[in-house]
């Protein structure tokens, strides 16, 4: 409507109005001055016009561009070509129109943002008196169900129209053959056939939701129906979780994504995610997807920091057709996110405030100190009866009785160190809106995440984790001319962190390695140290034991990170040259910087040197008088500065000729990334990519679709012969539901589409970044070689280390991807996407097998590996509004991705085929088959030899090759891969009036992990003893061959420390990922407090889970002793103004 108004304001023929409307208008027109309860806009908006000899049309256009007013002129009421001059400043619309129309004697009425110009007073009344057929009535509401006044309704092909009333109702005379257009500023126009209808109810949708009909594809957008690539689009609202880390929301919600989160530590809690699993196996190759935010390659952390409220579109691209254009980087799939842009319309302000209560999903259960001492003693004695007991009987007895806790301490380190619960806060604010010339979206958000360490008030610094994140975003779109759009996007994020020196996870690990009975966390000063200026931390022996309390208090790490992204984009419509042709250019610069410092003192450690049992006083002895410090020392930490620029120019051609639609695209890209602080010369050189990509898509009658894509890309990593790669792909789809023969089924199916694609995609991020120039040899000219010549053994000439041999032949890793898909949408609200995929990855970089006798230490690499991946991903959606009060949406996803090695240079395994990696998944683990524990020493004697020293109660392995000894040759593939092969999730949301509730379950399956016995072995070092092992281990009194833990050992048993099925665990789980309940206040109430919308809600994540594994949260897998995954309870408030 508004756009049309640019050139020809709608000529408005008022025939007959609904009575109320008529009365109102009549009143308005006769009184000339517009008075209306809701017309504050017209009173608040001030206009400034200075036009000489302009036509009325120009003036109307000018007013429309300055404001949100829309003009309607009654047919023949005004000669729009008539020239007038006007010069006003800061006047309301009434005053302006008064001045303008006074000479022509035209009358006008202002209805909120609609301006109607009539011929003279009473004009409308005369129209009202004309006889007419019974009007079509109806009501227009917005997405929230609120009536929408001021919507323009016109009959297509005529100039006739009406506008809706304050309660959204309207009436219009129309013939059954007519089509009605409903339009409103900032909303999507709708066309409805009148037919036999006498009542038409229309729900208007925001223009932003137009995106629903298009899908973001590589370098552009396509109509959803014509997309034949495999792309999953997720509504940003689906990803809303009470966390300041977006990546934690992915698991189970995005079909095609394998995702898991191993740690809950603020700042370190990024989930890992892979599109359709991992199909490359280079140890340090890039395995995770390409992340594009507003078209620009950024990092996982940048994605993690995105705020869901700012996301307009979130999609992942999976197959060759979707990713081929990103030739160099697309092989592992692409996650593409676009941020919101401002919409024409009034200012929208959205505020969200959340407060979360966070606690571990599960705490590791540890045995009591007395059991600890008994088992530690047993660990020594059971293997060496002559060994020295670590704790004498007196200590054990006294500790058990709880006497003299100063000298017989029993410390629960977990309780000493950690709080049960912490609070985190988040606030988001966004402001958006815009007019004809410019649109804007501005957002700010602040979050604060705390760690759960206890802090001693005697330190004046806080060593608990305190992570504050700030983010600002500003997206501005400017229409420079009617065909040129300029977009400026700026965003910046800041992380400010203080926390323990080695991080939160390390604190958890230290607690698990702290002796509970040797010393107290700290001692109250005795007489001698009464005036000590420092905390008297406890320790033992040489002061070399871990005192987690001292570790946490001794200092803190402080880091700041900043990412700034500036993007400039111009879009030019080249319709004047060729219809359907557009061109655009985009330039992006981003900078990342980070620095960290640590400040700490070296704690003084004390032990009790004598104790007076009668008055319970003690005297202390300092264990490290020379190495402890009272003052704080400073250490600079990591520093990074990275900068990247990206240039993209594209021309696109989009045109339909009757039943033929053609889309052509050609893109040129250039990217450079540099790091400012590199550890060596080769790393300091810029990373560069450039390429040309193109697409040609065609569809006939939206029934048959065909598409060809290609990427031709160059990478600086390879020698000149292998520098460029060409990656084409093709695809086809058939929309059965648009076929004639399908018509009998259209009652059930809204859409039925099958599609298939095949193509190649490249990956240049193979191998370690340190090694990127494989075609060059690398020599470390200042290698550390400890040779000390000379009289005083001080002359060290240094050394030379050849760290890589040159290999010219190394080139692109290429993926050949096949995808078959089925898209179904039913009329009852159910829709489904089912896809089957297969991928063959060739030229995977791997290390050659070089025997030791060659004396070559650096691993020799070659593009020799081949692997395949295959699987299924599907999603099921349900969306239905039962009536204006009740709606239900549901979503379920299922992703299965498995991989298999096809080719790998490996030793000669003909004699032991089970050692071969060929035919096995990529993250398969090899290990020994643990049969049970040895029953007695006689069995040990009569069994194949194993590892190191072992005896009854140690793990007995199976001699697979039967050579009488257990060796590497007996390792077989055990368990599932270490990344889950299945990720699934499902959830339902229900709304009734103002109330809404939702839940989401998520699970993963087919994953194994191994306990790292170095960290949990009871009796070894100061390892905390997990309760489950204390309850069930092999001992001389309890010779259970199937006990959970084998015979204790004081130092790690080499025999038991082999990777085997004994310590293999099932990583699958099923959890209630999230629950949310909200209440939106009724409109009348919110209006009365001058708000547009107000919603309060409570939500929770990771509420409970089911798993076979009981020691810790199974999602953490082998990282279980680190910072636990968090359960979060959250209350929030969302306000729109």
């Amino acid at each position, binding site marked *: 409507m508004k756009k049309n108004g640019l050139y020809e304001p709608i000529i408005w023929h008022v025939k007959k109005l609904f009575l109320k409307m008529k009365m109102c208008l009549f009143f308005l027109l006769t009184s000339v001055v517009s008075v209306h309860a809701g017309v504050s806009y017209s009173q608040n908006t001030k206009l400034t016009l200075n036009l000489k000899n302009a036509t009325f049309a120009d003036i109307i256009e000018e007013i429309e561009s300055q404001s949100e007013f829309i003009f309607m002129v009654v047919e023949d009421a005004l000669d729009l070509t008539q020239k007038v001059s006007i010069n006003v400043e800061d006047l309301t619309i009434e005053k302006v129109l008064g001045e303008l129309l006074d000479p022509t004697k035209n009358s006008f009425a202002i209805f909120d943002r609609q301006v109607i110009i009539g011929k003279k007073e009473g004009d409308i009344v005369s129209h009202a008196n004309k006889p007419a057929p019974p009007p079509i009535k109806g009501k227009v509401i917005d997405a929230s169900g609120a009536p929408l006044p001021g919507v323009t309704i016109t009959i297509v092909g005529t100039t006739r129209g009406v506008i809706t009333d304050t309660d959204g109702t309207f009436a219009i005379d129309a013939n059954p053959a007519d089509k009605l257009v409903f339009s409103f500023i900032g909303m999507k126009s709708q066309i409805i056939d009148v037919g036999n209808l006498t009542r038409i109810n229309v729900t208007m949708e925001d223009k932003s939701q137009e995106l629903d009909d298009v899908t973001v594809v590589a370098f552009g957008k396509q109509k959803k129906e014509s997309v034949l690539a495999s792309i999953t689009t997720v509504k940003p609202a689906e990803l809303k979780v009470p966390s300041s880390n977006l990546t934690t929301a992915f698991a189970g919600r995005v079909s095609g994504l394998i995702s898991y989160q191993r740690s809950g530590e603020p700042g370190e809690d990024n989930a890992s995610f892979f599109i359709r699993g991992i199909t490359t196996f280079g140890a340090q190759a890039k395995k995770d997807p390409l992340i594009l935010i507003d078209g620009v390659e950024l990092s996982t952390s940048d994605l993690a920091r995105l705020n869901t409220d700012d996301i307009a579109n979130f999609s992942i691209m999976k197959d060759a057709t979707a990713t081929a254009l990103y030739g160099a980087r697309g092989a592992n799939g692409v996650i593409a996110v676009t941020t919101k842009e401002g919409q024409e319309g009034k200012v929208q302000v959205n505020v969200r405030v959340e407060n979360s209560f966070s606690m571990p999903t599960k705490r590791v259960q540890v045995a009591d100190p007395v059991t600890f001492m008994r088992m530690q003693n047993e660990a020594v004695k059971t293997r060496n009866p002559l060994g020295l007991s670590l704790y004498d009987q007196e200590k054990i007895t006294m500790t058990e009785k709880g006497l003299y806790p100063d000298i017989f301490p029993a410390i629960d380190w977990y309780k000493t160190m950690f709080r049960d619960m912490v609070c985190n806060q988040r606030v988001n604010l966004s402001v958006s809106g815009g007019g004809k010339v410019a649109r804007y979206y501005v957002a700010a958000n602040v979050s604060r995440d705390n760690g759960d360490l206890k802090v001693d008030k005697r330190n004046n610094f806080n060593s608990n984790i305190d992570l504050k994140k700030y983010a600002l975003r500003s997206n501005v779109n400017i229409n420079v001319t009617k065909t040129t759009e300029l977009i400026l996007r700026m965003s910046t994020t800041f992380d400010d962190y203080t926390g323990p020196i080695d991080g939160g996870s390390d604190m958890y690990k230290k607690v698990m390695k702290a002796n509970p009975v040797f010393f107290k966390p700290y001692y109250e000063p005795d007489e001698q140290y009464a005036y000590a200026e420092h905390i008297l931390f406890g320790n033992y022996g040489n002061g070399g034991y871990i005192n987690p309390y001292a570790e946490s208090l001794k200092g803190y790490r402080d880091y700041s990170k900043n990412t700034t992204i500036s993007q400039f984009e111009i879009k030019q419509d080249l319709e004047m040259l060729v219809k359907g042709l557009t061109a655009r250019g985009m330039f992006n610069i981003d900078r990342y910087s980070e620095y960290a410092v640590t400040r700490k003192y070296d704690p003084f450690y004390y032990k009790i040197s004598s104790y007076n049992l009668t008055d319970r006083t003690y005297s202390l002895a*300092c264990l490290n008088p020379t190495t402890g410090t009272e003052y704080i020392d400073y250490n600079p930490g990591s520093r990074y500065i990275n900068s990247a620029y990206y240039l993209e120019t594209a021309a696109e051609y989009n045109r339909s000729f009757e039943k033929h639609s053609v889309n052509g695209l050609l893109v040129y890209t250039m990217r450079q990334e540099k790091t400012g602080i590199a550890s060596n*010369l080769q790393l300091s050189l810029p990373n560069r990519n450039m390429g040309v990509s193109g697409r040609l898509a065609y569809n006939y009658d939206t029934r048959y679709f065909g598409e060809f894509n290609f990427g031709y890309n160059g990478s600086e990593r390879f020698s000149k012969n292998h520098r460029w790669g060409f990656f084409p792909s093709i695809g086809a789809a058939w929309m059965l539901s648009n076929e004639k023969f399908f018509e009998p089924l259209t009652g059930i199916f809204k859409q039925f589409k099958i599609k298939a694609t095949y193509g190649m995609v490249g990956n240049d991020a193979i191998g370690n970044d340190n090694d990127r*120039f494989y075609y060059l*040899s690398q020599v470390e000219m200042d290698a550390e070689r400890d040779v*000390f010549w000379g009289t005083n053994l001080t002359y060290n000439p240094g050394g030379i280390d050849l760290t890589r041999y040159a290999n010219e032949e190394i080139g692109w890793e290429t993926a050949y991807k096949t995808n078959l898909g089925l898209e179904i949408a039913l009329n009852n609200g159910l829709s489904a996407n089912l896809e089957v995929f297969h991928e063959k990855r060739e030229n995977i970089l791997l290390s050659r097998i070089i025997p030791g006798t060659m004396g070559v230490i650096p691993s020799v690499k070659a593009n020799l590996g081949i692997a395949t991946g295959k699987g299924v991903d599907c999603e099921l959606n349900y969306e239905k509004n039962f009536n204006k009060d009740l709606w239900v949406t549901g979503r379920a996803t299922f992703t299965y991705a498995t991989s298999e090695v096809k080719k790998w240079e490996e030793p000669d395994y003909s004699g032991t085929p089970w050692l071969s990696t060929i035919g096995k998944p990529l993250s398969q683990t090899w290990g020994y088959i643990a049969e049970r524990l040895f029953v007695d020493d006689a069995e040990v004697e009569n069994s194949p030899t194993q590892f190191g020293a072992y005896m009854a109660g140690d793990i007995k392995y199976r001699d697979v090759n039967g050579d009488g000894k257990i060796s590497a040759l007996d390792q077989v593939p055990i368990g599932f891969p270490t990344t889950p092969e299945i990720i699934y999730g499902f959830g339902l949301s229900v709304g009734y009036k103002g109330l809404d509730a939702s839940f989401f379950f998520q699970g993963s399956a087919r994953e194994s992990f191994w306990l790292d016995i170095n960290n949990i072995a009871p009796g070894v070092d100061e390892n905390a003893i997990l309760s489950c092992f204390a309850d069930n281990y092999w001992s001389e009194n309890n010779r259970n061959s199937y006990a959970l833990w084998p015979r204790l050992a004081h130092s790690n048993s080499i025999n038991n420390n082999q990777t085997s099925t004994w310590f293999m665990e099932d990583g699958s789980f099923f959890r209630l990922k999230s629950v949310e309940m909200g209440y939106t206040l009724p409109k009348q109430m919110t209006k009365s407090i001058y708000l547009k919308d107000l919603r309060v809600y409570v939500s929770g994540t990771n509420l409970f889970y089911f798993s076979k594994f009981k020691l810790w949260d199974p999602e953490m897998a082998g990282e279980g002793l680190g910072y636990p995954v968090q359960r979060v309870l959250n209350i929030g408030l969302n306000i729109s103004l």
Partner: protein
Amino acid sequence: MKKIIPYFLILISLALLSSCDYLDVVPDNVATLDNAFSNRYTAEKYLATCYWSMPKSGGWNENPAMFGAMEMIFNKEDDGGGMMAARGYDSPTEAYFNYWSATGSPVRSLYAGVNNCNVFLANIDQVTDLETYEKNRMIAEVTMIKAFLHFYLLTYYGPVCPLKENTEINESTEGVRVYREKVDDTFTYILELLNGAIYSKALPVQIQNRTTELGRFTQAAACFLRAKVLLYWASPLFNGNTNYESFLDHNGEPFFNQTYDQDRWKKAAEACDTAITVCNSSGNRLYQMSDYVTSKTMSQATRLVNTLRHSVSERWNCELVWGSTSWPVDEGVQQQCIPRFEEATQQTTTGNMSVPLNVVEKFYSRNGVPIDEDADYDYAHRYELRTGDESHIYYIQKGEQTAVVNFDREPRFYSTLGFDRGKWYGNSYINEPNDDAECLYPKDRFGEFSSVFQPGDYNTTGYFCKKLVSVNTTYRDRNTVTYEKYPFPDMRFADLLLFYAEALNEMKDAPDEQVYQYIDMVRERAGLSGVVKSWGNHSIYPNKPSTKAGMREIIQGERAVELACEGSYYWDSRRWKTALKEQNGPVKGWDISKSDVHDYYTVTTVYNQTFSFKNYFAPIPESDIIKNPKLVQNPGW
């Protein structure tokens, strides 16, 4: 449609135009191998890299000989590679000293070292600013390193795959798989390398620039090594060893020659003779009491003990023919050797390095003969208690009780070992009294300051290794120590003298004065009479030195004592094939968990040492046999 084609063309040509150098990000002059041989400084760096690739003798988890024969041990709490291997847990899958293929540091594939040497030898000609003599010297040094590495591999693993030239990196899978070669061929190859280095005369007789070059090879070191190689070749393990009759190479021939060649001893003796001459001409000789300079007045007994200690641990003393500087004896080893001399709040030293009673008993009586042969020695009651008296005032604290076995021993006993109530001169800020009879001593009974300080750290036999502690290492106060660094004595002149005595004894039908001469030089320095006199006067076998077999036993005993705790016995017991007989049985010490003196001096078994035939050579790591199916595993593994 037609109109857009030009735009596309422009776009494409733009892309291709700029692409030519846009992706060329690598500037010229990025460091490559050529830069390593561009001038004398980089060449010296590469030379140092070659030296660095030799095995490190001064570390117990690096040098298999340190603990391997249980000449010294750690307590059972230690699970480092050294003790694990010594306790018999070495295996193809868990090779604790993987000098075959390890890629880490300091235990690293010796083949990688040879590879470095080959690169050096192939490229050294490129360096233009070196004088010819400097270049030749470096070539000789690197050739010698290459020989040293092959020799080490040969003695540790048996048959090896000599890496005479480097293999190309893109050699085919078949091409990189090589066979192990016959032992004699490798010996011949090593001698070829050594003779090349020696006859080139490029090695210095003496190091002139002592501030930057001490630690590099001399002509004496090369001759020493050649003598050692020839002696090993003549020794029973490698000379006609019929135990390996069925250990066959890929041609079906035995890896070890099956006929004993007496002539090899002669060659070895000649090489020893040459080496001794060359050593003497470059100033290498036994370190004598007169070489020991001190401002303190002290008894002759203490002076001799200190002299003997200095002969090993004084930096660059005249007895050192060559010592490794890339892993010198510093804090690492010495911290494990020194006991605490007074009550301390910090455990500065551990005293973990324990000498078993079996080794302790090998030292001679003060009469210079084994204690079980000494007619005057109360052998039967050696584990009983005796109180320190005036005659032992410089050896044992007067008035304190200790075991009889610690009394009436030769000076080397007191210079090599520290023990409960045994005098320990020096090494502490308060331990160089004007009257050396007042010097401090360890108190090691359980609960005393030299015993367990914290769990896991204690001496497990009651005998500390005094020998490896430099006299100049000092406790500055009770909680801090400064450690004197010295090169581990890989080649010591005394060793060469005993080599010569051994070779002479073996090549002759019966021992004569020439044999006695060289062993007696070593004994005399240690304050003992010659073998003939000592045995004649004190032994219950007075004629022992007159027979070849008896003299062999005496020489072996002398080596065990003189070279105790230097790792020599590990290699000797293998090349003599005596390990099988000697290294099966209990390894003993005092009961260090007891505080009562009677309980403490109770003989306790710490380990049961086992040695089977397979242990003569280390296992080839199984991973390498998988990588290269042409490799044959050593017998027994």
